[in-house]
């Protein structure tokens, strides 16, 4: 119940992970109401998804650009995220600093985030201000402006963001170190916040080139949910976004995680690590792989709730951990599945490791019980039922399902895919992914000695 500390570790994880778990509805037995929407392409390639809903006088605008840190070069890490900051500077028709002011004075709020595979921008407004969102987002796509003052200021802001969320915070570099180990040799090896040194090196010409290449309608999805009339909005979208020229065809990095044949351990000693923490991680499936369904259910059984296996063993019975978490984090070109335990004071990290290993071994050997399986399905149903309460969440998930699964209808049908999983599938994926040879272990011991803050960073930084 009140677990301020554990929750802060979990909050860090969720910050790093962004929207890791695509959750969804549509099972008549729990009474989900289908989310209706219209989708189409403009001639310039912009994909549009519209969910009309008049329950509250609000609209949520969401634009997803299919470009993230995996599109970066290894000597320009942090570029996509830095660029996201620049996209708040202004445009040919909106003066520097104007975007924030326009949205604030319209009674709305806005933000953006960058992760490995995507960069997204959202604006929430009272519904009478719908056109403002269209204007701002179309200006951002058509007339983005990158100038010296903005670059210099945002360079410093991004460095402070990095210090705040990663370097000055206990376990702040956890995901960064994880990515460097698990995704070694691929563009996922660095995280979206990137490295301070590269942020200084990027030139204005590089930003302009990046904009021209990636911020084009044929690389974007515009998703709007809320209080509007679809027919009228379609006309407005044609007016605002129709004239934006189509960009060159998009070339996306395609790669696979190289197979891992030996386990690896890394230890990160930081002066301000308060409690021992260990993370066990393995390569996992790509985001669109059907294995994501049994993997989600399996990690529920391992660590969601006080009856979960790792909680029972490490927190309740052995009392060595303050908290545990398990997560699949599946990206477009490959994924990771991890188990994190934060130890109580004075607990040896090896003890945490041994208990995690035993529980992993056990589920590989024995699979899960029928009761556990039903519980995991109920947890997934409950998640699905509570995931789409706001127009903002609907706009976002519709776009994500379209871009990464090629099917926005999953917002209504994804839960059915969980419900179609067989109990044996959980043991199958446990054996497939939790292989001892593919184990990556990351230790954050409580270090006595001082250490320099390390370079580099993590996922889903918000503006």
């Amino acid at each position, binding site marked *: *119940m*009140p677990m301020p500390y554990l929750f*802060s570790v979990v909050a860090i994880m969720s910050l790093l992970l962004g929207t890791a778990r695509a959750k969804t509805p549509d099972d008549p037995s729990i*009474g*989900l109401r289908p989310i209706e929407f219209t989708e189409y392409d403009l*001639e310039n390639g912009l994909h549009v998804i519209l969910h009309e809903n008049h329950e*509250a*006088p*609000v609209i949520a605008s969401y634009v997803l650009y299919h470009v993230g840190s995996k599109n970066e070069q290894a000597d320009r890490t942090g570029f996509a995220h830095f660029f996201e900051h620049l996209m708040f500077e202004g445009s040919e*028709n909106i003066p520097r600093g104007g975007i924030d002011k*326009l949205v*604030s*004075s*319209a*009674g*709305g*709020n806005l933000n953006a985030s960058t992760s490995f595979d995507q960069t997204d921008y959202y604006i929430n*407004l*009272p519904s*009478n*201000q719908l056109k403002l969102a269209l*204007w701002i987002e179309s*200006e951002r796509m058509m007339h983005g402006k990158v100038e010296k003052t903005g670059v210099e200021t945002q360079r*410093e802001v991004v460095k*402070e*963001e990095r210090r705040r969320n990663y*370097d*000055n*915070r*206990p376990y702040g570099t956890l995901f960064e170190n994880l990515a460097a180990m698990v995704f070694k040799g691929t563009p996922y090896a660095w995280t979206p916040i990137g490295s301070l040194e590269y942020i200084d090196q990027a030139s204005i010409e590089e930003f302009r080139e990046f904009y021209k290449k990636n911020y084009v309608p044929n690389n974007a999805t515009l998703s709007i949910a809320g*209080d509007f009339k679809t027919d009228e909005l379609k006309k407005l979208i044609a*007016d*605002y*976004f*129709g*004239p934006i020229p189509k960009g060159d065809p998009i070339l996306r990095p395609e790669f696979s995680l190289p197979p891992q044949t030996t386990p690896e351990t890394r230890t990160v000693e*930081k*002066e*301000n*690590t*308060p*409690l021992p923490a260990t993370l066990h991680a393995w390569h996992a499936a790509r985001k669109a792989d059907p294995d994501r369904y049994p993997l989600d259910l399996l990690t529920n059984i391992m660590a969601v*709730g*006080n*009856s979960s296996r790792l909680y*029972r063993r490490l*927190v309740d019975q052995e009392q060595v951990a*303050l908290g545990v978490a398990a997560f699949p984090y599946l990206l477009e070109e490959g994924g990771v599945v991890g188990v994190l335990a934060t130890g*109580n004071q004075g607990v040896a990290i090896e003890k945490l490791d041994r208990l995690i290993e035993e529980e992993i071994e056990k589920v590989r050997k024995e699979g899960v019980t029928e009761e556990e399986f*039903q*519980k995991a399905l*109920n*947890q*997934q149903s409950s998640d699905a*039922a*509570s995931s789409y*309460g*706001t127009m903002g969440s609907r706009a976002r998930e519709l776009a994500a399902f379209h871009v990464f699964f090629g099917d926005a209808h999953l917002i209504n049908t994804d839960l059915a895919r969980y419900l179609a999983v067989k109990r044996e599938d959980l043991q199958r994926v446990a054996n497939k992914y939790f292989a001892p040879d593919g184990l990556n272990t990351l230790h954050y011991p409580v270090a006595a000695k*001082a*250490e320099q803050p390390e370079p580099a960073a993590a996922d889903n930084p918000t503006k």
Partner: protein
Amino acid sequence: MKSYLTLTLLVLIAIAPVVRADLDRSKKPEAGPAPQASFPAYKEYTLENGLKVFIVESDRQPTVTLRLLVRSGSAFDGSKPGLDDLMTSLLDRGTKDRSATEFARQLDFVGASLNAGVNSDATSVSTTGLTKFGEQILDLFSDAVLRPTFPADELAKEKVKALSELAADKKEPSALGARLRKALLFGAHPYGASASEESVKSIGPADVAAFHRAYFLPNNATLAVVGDVKAEEVLARVKAAFRDWKPGELPKSDWPAFPKQSGATVYLIDRPGSVQSNILVAQLGVPRDNPMVPELNVLSSALGGGSSGRLFQNLREQHGWTYGAYASFGFQKTGGIFSSGAEVRNPVTDLAIAEILKEVNRIRSEPIPENELALQRDYSVGNYLLSLESPERTAERVQEIDLYNLPKDFYRTYARRLSSVTSAQALELAKKYLSTSDVAIIVVGDASQIKSKLEKFGKVHVYDTDLKPMPDAVAK
């Protein structure tokens, strides 16, 4: 040839976007008439034992949320700070009918979880789950809040975790700053207290049981039910579940006054290795039932409420010193805090403090220009309207009105109040409630890098991360 051309043209017309010539991209589009920010409907009942029940019906999702708000919080911990926290962490760790293990098994099985929140003024316990499991969820929820048994072994486990959390908080800059801030501003008043190793170790099963018995009373609580429910049906179930809960008399409390802040003093918590300084410029604020809360919210929004606030614009957008800079009132039942802050890189710590003080001073000496104030009013009203989308938030607000004895129509009139704040009003409030001379300047950071630059703001007191004063010689 001609027909081919015509055909091409026809195809082009058919697929080309219809571009209206009158779209002027150089100007911001006109907004339609603003929608009303009308507070959603809810139903209110009082059970025979005094428990107030608020029901917000919303069928957007097939879920139901239950939230019990007890009008006593950690301010009632007495000589054992951390008591309320430990008590609530044990509510689902053994009840009259269920062991901790059995409770977890049943609650997890229906895909729900129990969450608790403790602050100085109140204790909340809540759960959300599928409507189809509504009966089981209500049964488990009422069992946890009404019939916990506080087994000694479960308490022992929670104490180990609580001690680890305390250790963790000593490395977390924001936790360190918040802890010192309340100790400084509230002094010996219970709002100033925080759990310590000693207090947590001193808590026994009898203490948690006594706290629960004393404060978890139907006449000291409200229950909100939100979601895909029919009020009459769910009310009958709630009545049955809470029927045996007996009202009682609340213990009397007698609390000391807050210390008087005079002069500006710097409190530096030395956290070696910090690559940023966490700055809080803090002073006493006002209680939640202050009649000017809507106007004060617009004022603090202008100073530091979001990305258009002065602190953000100055420290981030002009200077690039921080990822964000904000100011806000923290309203509590019998007092409050006003605090401005930012996390900045070490070398600009003093410059950032000076700019924060400058902005606070400016807002209390010059009227806010009308266009800026209009932006802040509209920002506040619009974001309030957006927040009404959440039925859970509506229920929390209704419970908040009860907790703080606010006028019944507080939220019905809130948007109107926000939208009518004048520049003169804002200035008067700023003069009355904001100070730059009597403030605690709290900095969490690496003393060896920043201490000498802080002396210009006032006497510098240095603390270690246990919040024990350090002799001057130690922190150079």
